[in-house]
């Protein structure tokens, strides 16, 4: 499985969201920046970064930035990553972004995602400009490099991000086979 390289075009998808709608790249056509974040419910790394992802979406929503969470984990192996559990978690934490279910795992495989959380950030032309971690430490008080935030700021200024790729730190995606 190869990961989408920096500069590559976003790969089309159509996935159900927890709100009953179906989402695709076209859904976000009027957004200047699109961040796809492979995520899930159970992973302690996701839970450590969850509040920061919510903050980033709140902060940049008015600037045309859309973050979208995609859960591809096999719910047979992890029942807390089921569609119903996704709905509950999004409600509990007041997710300000769509939370999509990649049950066939085809989108995760197409992007070459391996971890949760793992960010793929696209500019307005939907070219990949940043891939990797949200920032450089799971403990918010120890963060020194705000990778995602800095990449968004750069894209909004039509500049390349200062850092375009970092290792995604988190749980492995739980594949069905």
């Amino acid at each position: 499985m190869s990961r989408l390289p920096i500069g590559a075009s976003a790969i089309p998808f159509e996935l159900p969201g927890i709100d009953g709608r179906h989402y695709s790249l076209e859904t976000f056509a009027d957004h200047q920046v699109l961040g796809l974040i492979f995520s899930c419910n159970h992973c302690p790394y996701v839970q450590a970064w969850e509040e920061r992802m919510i903050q980033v979406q709140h902060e940049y929503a008015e600037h045309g930035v859309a973050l979208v969470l995609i859960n591809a984990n096999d719910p047979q192996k992890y029942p807390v990553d089921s569609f119903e559990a996704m709905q509950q978690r999004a409600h509990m934490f007041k997710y300000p972004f769509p939370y999509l279910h990649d049950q066939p795992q085809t989108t995760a495989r197409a992007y070459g995602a391996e971890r949760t959380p793992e960010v793929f950030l696209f500019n307005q032309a939907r070219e990949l400009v940043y891939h990797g971690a949200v920032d450089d430490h799971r403990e918010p008080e120890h963060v020194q490099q705000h990778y995602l935030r800095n990449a968004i700021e750069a894209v909004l200024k039509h500049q390349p991000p200062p850092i375009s790729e970092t290792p995604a730190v988190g749980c492995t995606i739980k594949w069905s086979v």
Partner: protein
Amino acid sequence: MTLSLDYLWWAECPSHEEGLALLRAVLAAEGIDAVIRLVEVRDEADAQRLQFIGSPTILVNGQDIDPHPVASGAASIYALTCRAYRRDDGRIAPLPTREWLRSRLSALSTS
């Protein structure tokens, strides 16, 4: 008294080295004499056999260091997964805090 510690870890979960360093640092700072046995959990069969609830797991004299471990969310209670630790402020993290670890090890070393 020398504590017997088992440090169970899974390579796919990224914090095991940091967790081990934290454990060693707390033991040294508290002056707790301990022998640490490193146990790599390589597959699901290992996880079941070792009753592994997530990486990293610390056993003190054979007992889990956390009297109230957080459920992993996996279908099986024992699984290849990253372990969740609940902090005092309620947040979930992949490693315990230094203070929590110090408190638990101090309590267990004198019990």
